[in-house]
């Protein structure tokens, strides 16, 4: 297990008193291009996670069962090729983002903040004009529906009406009832976006993840190349790629690689918290040497 993975489950607890942010006087500007830093969770934010690695995700039994049934070959089906990841992929995926605002040209007020799309995530529009979320039975879209508000110099947004999707690019699922709360914390040229994903079907408790971006003068495009489905070898009428219960061949993949027990990679709420270390004690034997996905060699090597 890498430290990257470890830190995902290193959600500890804050005890005692800490000053709470006081209401601020004014909102701040978030506009610009922000490049991503993949200094943690590098597998998720780079090549993609191991096929069965749900460590740190508070999956329900249903969520775990759905995740284990996932085969990445499903994306070779034409109807799935252009299936975008939900808005939560902003804090889970690898890409940088561009942020810009729409203004009311009469009074100058910000009507909405926009976050650029990537090639596998639709753009996000954060409505700031106080409009309500659609009714529960309104259609769900690839971007979902998002509203936002300022608390001092911190923008918080809330997204509903997303389509079904994935928390991780290995099939850890989100349902269409999932919601996403994003908090934008800007410190000069550094932007930390905290995401809290809730899902009544597949998560036992909120899944919290943060993502770091750095202001960049290299422009990031607001949209990416449109996805056009094409034949990728999956014939119409063929079987839908999946693994039947108990048949996922990758369950032992990283347990062998990192010497961690299988129950750890299957996730669940307890794997989010530091106490889980006690459960690993005696079961974990540190591999002598890293043999796969060990990190890029520095320049000159």
């Amino acid at each position, binding site marked *: 297990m*890498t*430290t990257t*993975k*470890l*830190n995902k*489950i*290193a*959600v*500890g*607890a*804050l*005890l*005692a*008193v*800490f*000053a*709470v*942010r*006081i209401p*601020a*006087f*004014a909102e*701040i500007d978030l506009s610009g291009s922000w490049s991503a830093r*993949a*200094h*943690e969770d590098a*597998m998720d934010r780079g090549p993609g996670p191991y096929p069965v690695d749900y460590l740190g995700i508070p999956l329900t039994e249903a969520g775990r069962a759905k995740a284990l049934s996932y085969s990445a070959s499903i994306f070779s089906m034409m109807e799935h090729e252009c299936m975008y990841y939900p808005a939560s992929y902003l804090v889970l995926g690898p890409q940088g983002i561009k942020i810009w605002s729409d203004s009311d040209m009469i009074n100058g007020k910000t009507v909405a903040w926009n976050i650029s799309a990537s090639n596998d995530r639709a753009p996000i529009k954060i409505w700031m004009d106080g409009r309500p979320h659609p009714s529960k039975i309104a259609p769900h879209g690839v971007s979902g529906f998002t509203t936002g508000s300022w608390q*001092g*110099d911190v923008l*918080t947004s809330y997204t509903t009406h997303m389509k079904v999707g994935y928390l991780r690019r290995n099939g850890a699922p989100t349902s269409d009832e999932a*919601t996403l709360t994003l*908090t934008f*914390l800007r*410190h000069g040229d*550094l932007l*930390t976006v*905290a995401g*809290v994903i*809730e899902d009544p079907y597949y998560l036992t408790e*909120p899944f*919290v*993840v*943060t993502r*770091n971006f750095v202001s960049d003068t290299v422009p990031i495009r607001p949209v990416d190349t449109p996805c056009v489905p094409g034949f990728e070898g999956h014939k119409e009428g063929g079987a839908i790629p999946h693994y039947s219960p108990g048949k996922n061949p990758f369950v032992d993949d990283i347990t062998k690689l*990192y010497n961690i027990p299988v129950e750890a990679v299957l996730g669940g709420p307890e794997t989010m*918290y*530091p106490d*889980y*270390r006690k459960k690993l*004690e005696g079961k*974990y034997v*540190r591999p002598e*040497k*890293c043999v796969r996905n*060990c*990190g890029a*060699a*520095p*320049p000159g*090597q």
Partner: protein
Amino acid sequence: MVTPAKGDYLSVPITVEAKKVADSWDPAKEEAAGNQCKGYGAAALMRLPGRLHITWQDDQTLRVDTDAGTQTRLFHFGDWKAPAGEPTWQGDSVAQWESPRVPRGMPPPEPGQIKSGDLKITTTHMRAGFLRKNGVPYSADAVLNEYYDIIHERNGDQLLVVTTVVTGPMYLQQPFITSSQFKKQADATGWAPTPCSSTW
């Protein structure tokens, strides 16, 4: 959660020099030399799985105790001057509240007037340590900048988000940026101070 294998520096933007250090990591030697806290220095401590206990030590000093490695960090406000002496694992930390923006036409607050908001900590004078417990190093001249923000979940839970930027050209090609989350507890349940360890 656990100490990774030797040579696992995935996601850390290390230099050639750092790779040499990481590849020569020997936890048994570190233990024997009394360096088992090398992975618990300020630049790495907030990334370790564990709990924090945050209190005011006095009017100008915020104290952060960690159960991982039983370490204490002190964040000094005001015009505190670092004492002379050898560098330490937790270094010297200077704290300041980052004030909310003041609207146009309003006078800026006087220094020291701001008593809350989000917190910026700058730490220097650290003893050289490990960014990752498997020997990925940071140097004694590394500088640590941290931002502490409190956010709220919709269910009422309070989260502390700590964004950490470690700069040190000897071992890092670029600033190493990570962020960690802590959920506020109602009490001290689970608080379990443990000693430093190079191997676990």
